[in-house]
């Protein structure tokens, strides 16, 4: 079951976003072809049985026989003088009744043909009066009427069958159209569900990645994120076009702050300091917790003057918090800051971190609460 689900998902992915449209179009094409074929079949059947263009079945043979018989009877009845020869209409009436389908199916037909023979014989040798001949032919007329009625009934039956067949065909076509709609709908829902699952998986993945790369206490990015960022930066070609600078800072005398106020307040101080720093940064700058009270800011800014200004904003942001620190400079929490500009020469991550760490160390050894920028080695207090 799981395998078949993944197979369907793989198939849907491969078919692409428009797969359901293609399959729906195929379904409609199949439905249209079936409707066309069905209509064509019915048309052909109808034409074969109800063709009025060519005459023969527009008027049944027996009807024509009856018409000629009536004409013959009329001639016989209205003849004042003896008839020289039997009317041609009598022969035609005979001919149109003398058809295999009638003689084999209707018992009265062979008898009627014999009666017409008798009538002809009587007219030739004038053996019986005309009115008796007409009386004889009336029997033939009755037979013709029963044959015609039966043939009409056949036609009606056939028409009903064709109509029924047409109805069945229409029902099949309707069912097929509905089925194709349902198939299209099903495929569409499947596609939507598939997309939703992918979106959900992506969202979860992003959330998980964010959690994995975020420091849970301060909300800054963590050391793993720093490594990932620097790794991507150093491996990419962006470094040549877009140099970066690293700013590493830590809180001065933070161990004694923790000793004095405890780790809970120490954590609060970390949160406040990183928050103040974040406000001092530009939107594109990134802040990472490197470890303990040490943080790294990565910026695309490389101009020494601008970097000095940024560093000053960061120092002032922390000072402005005025977090009391009896062992700190001026009795408040301050930070020391080392800045390193990474030019376009090749680096390892450890080299970069080591370089900026050294500038931070310089800032500390020079009295803390200050910035040291390399490679200019210019310090700003």
């Amino acid at each position, binding site marked *: 079951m799981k395998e078949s689900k993944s197979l369907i998902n793989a198939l849907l992915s491969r078919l692409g976003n428009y797969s359901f449209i293609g399959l729906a179009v195929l379904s409609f094409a199949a439905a249209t072809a079936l409707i066309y074929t069905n209509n064509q079949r019915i048309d052909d059947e109808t034409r*074969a*049985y109800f*063709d009025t263009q*060519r*005459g*023969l*079945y527009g008027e049944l043979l027996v009807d*024509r026989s009856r018409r*000629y018989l009536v004409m013959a009877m009329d001639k016989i009845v209205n003849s004042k003088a003896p008839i020289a*020869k*039997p009317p*041609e209409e009598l*022969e*035609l009436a*005979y*001919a149109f009744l*003398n*058809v*295999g*389908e009638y*003689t*084999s199916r209707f018992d009265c037909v062979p008898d009627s043909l014999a009666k017409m023979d008798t009538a*002809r*014989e009587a007219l*030739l*040798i004038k*053996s019986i009066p005309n009115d008796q001949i007409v009386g004889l032919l009336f029997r033939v007329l009755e037979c013709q009427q029963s044959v015609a009625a039966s043939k009409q009934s056949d036609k009606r039956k056939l028409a009903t069958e064709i109509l029924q067949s047409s109805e069945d065909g229409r029902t099949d076509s309707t069912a097929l159209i509905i089925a194709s709609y349902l198939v299209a709908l099903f495929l569409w829902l499947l596609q939507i569900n598939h997309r939703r699952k992918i979106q959900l998986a992506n969202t979860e993945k992003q959330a998980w990645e964010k959690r994995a790369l975020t420091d849970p206490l301060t909300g800054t990015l963590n050391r793993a994120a720093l490594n990932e960022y620097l790794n991507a930066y150093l491996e990419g070609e962006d470094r040549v076009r877009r140099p970066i600078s690293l700013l590493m800072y830590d809180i001065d005398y933070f161990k004694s702050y923790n000793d004095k106020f405890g780790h809970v307040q120490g954590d609060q101080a970390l949160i406040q300091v990183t928050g103040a720093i974040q406000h001092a940064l530009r939107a594109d700058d990134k802040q990472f917790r490197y470890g303990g009270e040490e943080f790294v800011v990565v910026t695309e800014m490389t101009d020494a003057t601008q970097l000095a200004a940024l560093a000053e904003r960061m120092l002032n942001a922390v000072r402005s918090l005025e977090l009391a620190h009896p062992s700190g400079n001026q009795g408040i929490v301050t930070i020391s800051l080392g800045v390193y500009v990474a030019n376009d020469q090749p680096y390892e991550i450890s080299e970069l971190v080591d370089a900026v760490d050294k500038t931070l160390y310089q800032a500390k050894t020079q009295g803390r609460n200050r910035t040291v920028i390399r490679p200019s080695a210019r310090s700003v207090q």
Partner: protein
Amino acid sequence: MMLKRVSAFLIALLTSSMLYAATLELVDGDTRLVLDVDALVASATESHVAFAPFRKRTVEFRGHDFEAFLQQYLKHKVSRVNVTAVDGYQVSLSGIEGQTWMLVTHEDGKPLELRTHGPLRLIQTNIGDRDPNNMSLFDDWIWMIERIEVVD
């Protein structure tokens, strides 16, 4: 009884071909030929045995190859004709060449009469995939022919 048999014999002698006009009119433009049906009956040599849709049984037909018949009298090949029956029924036949039409004069050895759909009829010796039990598929097999007009 004897008298009855004699009268039947006399009637048989006076067949419909004797009672009614027995000629075939053949028209080709300005040419108009009137052929004697008795002569056509007498000269019929082609034979074909097949299930007859209007008889519902197998019949031995005798007559003339229609294409050859037209060429014999009109001295050229004909591909389209209008055929008219005694009762006014008409069909238009095209593609005469290669369609195996036969001008029938006899059924089972007996000359056709008006009452047996004669004296001249047209059939096809090759009916393809048509069902011989369905008469409606053979409504161009015209009976009682009295006139043939070339429409090439």
